[in-house]
């Protein structure tokens, strides 16, 4: 399969004299059309990696090639043509005053004539199911809806690669599911290569391949099934356990033994109340 992204020996330091680089000699390839998940702890360097791919951070050592173009300060805008990025905070990437203005933002930057923009914006908004919200202002939209608008902005530009930089982490479970379903769909119809940087197990499971990054280095690379067969080690990899499991782990650390058979949040809450009133 053809490689759409090639990263060779990428090293990045936020400060030139930093003894521990944020990315340390990272090399990997992304195949055209695949869904690649990159997981790791906070501060492991995964967001730094995502930003490097789009030329948003100037690296000094290593080589990045996107769609056959080597990323240099001269080619950075050509590379950005090929990559669409969605970031974590839905509010902080909504530039336009209304949904349609925001979807048009990327097209305006590319100096597309208005007559071409109008149908494209309309189609992109329809594609993500936001047509009835086209005139709305961001303050009247939910986080999930804002991220869908961000996706519409990507659809309008039609890049080859979509990078989700923890794009679902600030959404509620339902918004998260809807967004992932939409990305899956768009990947098929728009022939996108998807790179998702994530903490979310569900999001990583959809991927064809998972890269695990720790302390700026690639430590593992496998199919999701292989990675997730490792059970407890998922936490070490920086993936989120379900909330109740995290709560139980925290209780055990404090020497409180939670009942093993309690599963849901509601039962857990009930149990907590009972134990509190007993003390």
């Amino acid at each position, binding site marked *: 399969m053809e490689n759409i992204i090639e990263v060779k020996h990428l090293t990045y330091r936020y400060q030139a004299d930093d003894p521990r680089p944020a990315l340390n000699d990272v090399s990997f390839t992304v195949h055209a059309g695949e869904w690649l998940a990159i997981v790791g702890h906070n501060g492991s360097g995964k967001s730094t990696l995502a*930003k490097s791919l*789009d030329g*948003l951070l100037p690296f000094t050592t290593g080589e990045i090639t996107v769609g056959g173009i080597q990323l240099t300060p001269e080619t950075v*805008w050509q590379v*950005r*043509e090929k*990559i*669409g*990025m969605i*970031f974590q*905070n839905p*509010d*902080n*990437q*909504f*530039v*336009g*005053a*209304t949904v*349609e*203005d925001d979807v*048009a*933002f*990327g*097209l*305006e*930057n*590319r*100096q*597309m*004539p*208005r007559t071409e*923009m*109008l149908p494209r*914006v309309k189609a992109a908004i329809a594609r993500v199911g936001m047509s009835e919200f086209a005139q709305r*202002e*961001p*303050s009247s939209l939910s986080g999930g809806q804002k991220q869908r608008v961000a996706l519409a*902005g990507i659809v309008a*530009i039609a890049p080859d690669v979509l990078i989700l930089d923890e794009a679902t982490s600030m959404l509620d479970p339902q918004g998260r599911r809807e967004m992932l379903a939409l990305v899956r769909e768009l990947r098929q119809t728009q022939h996108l290569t998807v790179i998702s940087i994530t903490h979310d197990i569900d999001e990583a499971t959809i991927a064809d391949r998972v890269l695990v990054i720790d302390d700026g280095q690639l430590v593992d690379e496998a199919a999701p099934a292989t990675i997730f067969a490792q059970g407890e080690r998922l936490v070490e990899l920086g993936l989120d356990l379900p909330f109740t499991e995290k709560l139980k782990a925290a209780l055990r650390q404090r020497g409180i033994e939670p009942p093993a058979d309690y599963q849901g949040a509601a039962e857990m809450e009930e149990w907590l109340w009972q134990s509190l009133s007993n003390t």
Partner: protein
Amino acid sequence: MSNFIFGRYLPLNSVVHRLDPRAKLLLSFCYIGLVFMANNPVSYLIIIAFTLGAILASKISLGFFLKGIRPLIWLIVFTVVLQLLFSPVGGHVYFHWAFVNITQFGLVNSGYIFIRFLLIIMMSTLLTLSTQPLDIATGLASLMKPLRWVRVPVDTLAMMLSIALRFVPTLMDEANKIMNAQRARGVDFGEGGLLKQAKSLIPLMVPLFMSAFNRAEDLSTAMEARGYQDSEHRSQYRILTWQRRDTITWIIFVVAFAAILATRRW
């Protein structure tokens, strides 16, 4: 804040709402000139008729305009009283003490000043009530375009203004959240003396500013990722179109202006 009408937008569907923001902005500026041209009862009647006509056409109830005046009432009273007490001698003198004169001339003048204030406030309230802030920004940017020739970065300013407006509700929400979080920790907002009140704002302002800076940084990254290089080399999605109703409005305004020039005391 909630009873502050001036500067708020009231979404209605009227001719005035649909006017090109440039037409409304220019007209509001020129209207001030019109108000200062009037100097006798007939010319004032013409302006009042024009203003009431505009308000009627906007379908916004008069009550909103009266509410809009309320926060400015002390400024008006102050100016009117100054005019009343210290105007130059002219006409019949009703009252004289030291340097205070209440004269016929002063009385009439302060009446006019009062009406002028009222009219100008009403017209600017009409502008903001009937035009979305974003449209005002777009209109202003469009009107400022000639300044490009003297190297004013009009497009960048327009982009900044539009982003600022877009983030007003976001930051208001944020401020609210922070205030609630601080209240939960025992901070009293709006209690005690002036100094204490100002002090209680510190735990609000510090996190608010930090978050605003973070947002700005995120936003600039996102804009760059979406291909934003500079504001000059972009096409425009949102454009303004001057329509027949704008021309008609201006014809009415020019007629009113001519009528005032004809009737005023020279």
